[in-house]
C-alpha cells in the first residue's frame, strides 16, 4: 500500500527470457510484523521447486505474493518476465488496476491447503466456471476439457458430485483440475496435502507427480519430504522470513549445511 521501494529505483531489470519465476528481495509486513525479510528465488520453466520450513516461517505468505494475493512492501516478483502487480512506466511503478491483476492471475494456478472448492457447484462446474466466465470460452469445449481433466485426476465418475460428497483427497484433485482448466504456465501449491487424512495424501501427490512429469512449472509449499526428494528439482528452506538454504533436494535433505535446516529436517524426517 505505502510506497513500494524499488531496489536502486531503476534497478528493476528489464523483462528477459529468463526464469519462469524470478523474485528479488521480497519484503512483506503485516502491520508492524515483518514476515518476509528479503526473499530471493528463481524457478526455471518446467522446474519443480519445493518450499520447506517451519510453520510461521513465511513460506505460504511468499507463495501468496507470487499471484498478488498479498501485496509486497519491497522488492519485486516477475512471472514469465512480467512484473507482478505493477507496471513500469517512465522509471516509475504504477499499481495495476484490479482487472489487470486478475488478468495476470489467469496464467498462475493455485491450489490451497483447504481446497476452497465452490460448494454450490458440482465438480464439473467447479472446473468449468473460470474458463467460461474469465476466458469466455465456448461451453462445449470447456465442458469436454473439464471432463478430460477430471478424468486425468481420476475423478471421471464424479463429475456431477458436489464437493460435500467428495473425500478430502478427491476435493483436492478437483481443485487441481480447476486450476489446470485455466491452462496456467505456473502452478502454486500451498500445503496441498496438510489437511488430508494420511491415507488420502498419496492420491494427491500422485496427481502432482504426473503434472511434474508433464513439464509443469510448480512451486510447492509442503511438509512432504519424500515428495520433495523424489519429484523436486530444487528445494528452498525458509525460516524467519529469509531463505536459509537452497539447492538440489536430495543433497540438501541428505546433507544439510545450515544448523536450522538440520534441526528442522531432524524433526520431520
Amino acid at each position, binding site marked *: 500500500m505505502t510506497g513500494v521501494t524499488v531496489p536502486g529505483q531503476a534497478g528493476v531489470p528489464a523483462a528477459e527470457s529468463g526464469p519462469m519465476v524470478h523474485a528479488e528481495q521480497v519484503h512483506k509486513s503485516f502491520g508492524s510484523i515483518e514476515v518476509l525479510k528479503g526473499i530471493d528465488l528463481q524457478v526455471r520453466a518446467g522446474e519443480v521447486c519445493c518450499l520447506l520450513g517451519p510453520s510461521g516461517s513465511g513460506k505460504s505468505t511468499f507463495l501468496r505474493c507470487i499471484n498478488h494475493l498479498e501485496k509486497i512492501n519491497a522488492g519485486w516478483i516477475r512471472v514469465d518476465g512480467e512484473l507482478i502487480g505493477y507496471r513500469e512506466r517512465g522509471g516509475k511503478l504504477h499499481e495495476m488496476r484490479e482487472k489487470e491483476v486478475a488478468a495476470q492471475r489467469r496464467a498462475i494456478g493455485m491450489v490451497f491447503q483447504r481446497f476452497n472448492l465452490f460448494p*454450490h457447484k458440482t465438480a464439473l462446474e467447479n472446473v468449468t466456471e*473460470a474458463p467460461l466466465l474469465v476466458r469466455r470460452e465456448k461451453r462445449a469445449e470447456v465442458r469436454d476439457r473439464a471432463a478430460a481433466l477430471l478424468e486425468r485426476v481420476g475423478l471421471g465418475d464424479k463429475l456431477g458430485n458436489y464437493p460435500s460428497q467428495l*473425500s478430502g483427497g478427491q476435493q483436492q484433485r478437483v481443485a487441481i483440475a480447476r486450476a489446470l482448466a485455466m491452462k496456467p504456465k505456473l502452478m502454486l501449491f500451498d500445503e496441498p496435502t496438510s489437511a488430508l487424512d494420511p491415507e488420502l495424501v498419496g492420491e494427491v501427490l500422485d496427481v502432482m507427480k504426473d503434472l511434474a512429469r508433464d513439464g509443469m512449472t510448480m512451486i510447492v509449499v509442503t511438509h512432504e519430504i519424500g515428495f520433495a526428494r523424489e519429484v523436486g528439482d530444487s528445494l528452498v528452506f525458509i525460516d524467519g522470513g529469509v531463505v536459509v538454504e537452497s539447492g538440489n533436494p536430495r543433497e540438501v535433505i541428505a546433507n544439510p549445511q545450515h544448523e536450522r535446516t538440520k534441526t528442522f529436517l531432524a524433526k520431520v524426517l
Partner: protein
Amino acid sequence: MSVGTDSPERARPEPIQAVPVRHPGRWVAVAVIGVLVAMFVHLLVTNQAFNWSFMVDNMFRPPIMAGVRGSIALLVTSMLIGIVLGVVIAVMRLSENPILRGVSWAYTWFFRAVPRLVLAILFGNLGILWARIEFGLPFDRQIGALFGIQDFEARLFGFSAVDILTGFVAGMLALGLSEAAYMAEIIRAGIQSVDEGQTEAAQALGMTRGQILRRIVLPQAMRVIVPPTGNETIAMLKDTSLVAFVPVSAELFFQLRAVGSRTFQVFPMLVAATIWYLLLSSVLLVGQYYLERHFAKGIGRAGQAKARLRGMAVGGGGVTGGGGGV
C-alpha cells in the same frame, strides 16, 4: 477374532420386551387443550357478533379484491426496491472506499431510526416541499445568476409532485427505502458469512470482484440471506397496511375497515382482515420453502440426499478414494 453371526450356538437373542415409560403429563395436556379448543369453537359458533355470513358475503367484494391486489403490488414493488437497493448498500458498506462506507452507514442509520408509519406520512406530504420535481443541471438558477442570466433553467423533464408523490408511489418509496436499510444488514451478514477462502480461490482463478460477488459469494450467501428475507417479506405484507396513512386507499386493510365502519360491522371485518393476512402469509411461506431448498444446493443434508439418489441412478460407486466423506 471370530464374529459369531453364523455360529449355531450363538443364536439371536430375544427382542427386548420392556414396559415403556408412561407419559401421564401428555394426557393431562391433551385434556386441557381439548377443553380450551372446545371453548374457542363454541365462541366462534355461538357468538352473534362474529356475523359469519356477513363476513363471507363481504370479504371478497370487488373493492376488497382491489385492495388485495394493491397490497400485493405494494409488497412486491417495495420488496424489490428493498432487495436491490439493499444489495447496493451492503456492497457499499463492505467496499474499500471510505466515502461509500460512510454513505451506506448514514442511510442505514436514518431509515432504521425513523418508524415506517412516520415515513409513510412524511413521503405522502413531500408535495409540500416542491410543487414540481424536475431533473436537469443542479443549481441551474444560481449558476445562471453567476453569469448574469436571469431565470436560467436547464431542466430536462419534470412532473407534478402532488400527482406522483401521493398515494401508491409515496407508500412504495417509504416502505421500499426503509426496507433497503434492513435488507442491507441482512445481505451484509450473508456476504460476511461466506468463507474468505472462496474469494481467494476465485481471485486466484482470475475473476474480478464483480464476478466473484455475483457467481461465488452471493449464491452462497443466499443460504443465510433467504430465511430472514422471508421474515422481512411477511413483515412487509403486514406493513402495507400503514400506507393507509399516506393516504392510499387501494389497500387491503383500508378497504376492509371502510366496509366495517360503513355497515357498523366492525368486528367481522377485523376477522376478515386476520383471515386475509393469514392466507397471504401462508402463500409466502410456501415460496420461502422452495427458495431455501434451491439455495441449499450442494450444502447440508438436502443436497447430499439428492445427489445420492443421482449417484445411484448413474450406478457409480466410489472407484477411487473411499467413497463420500463428510
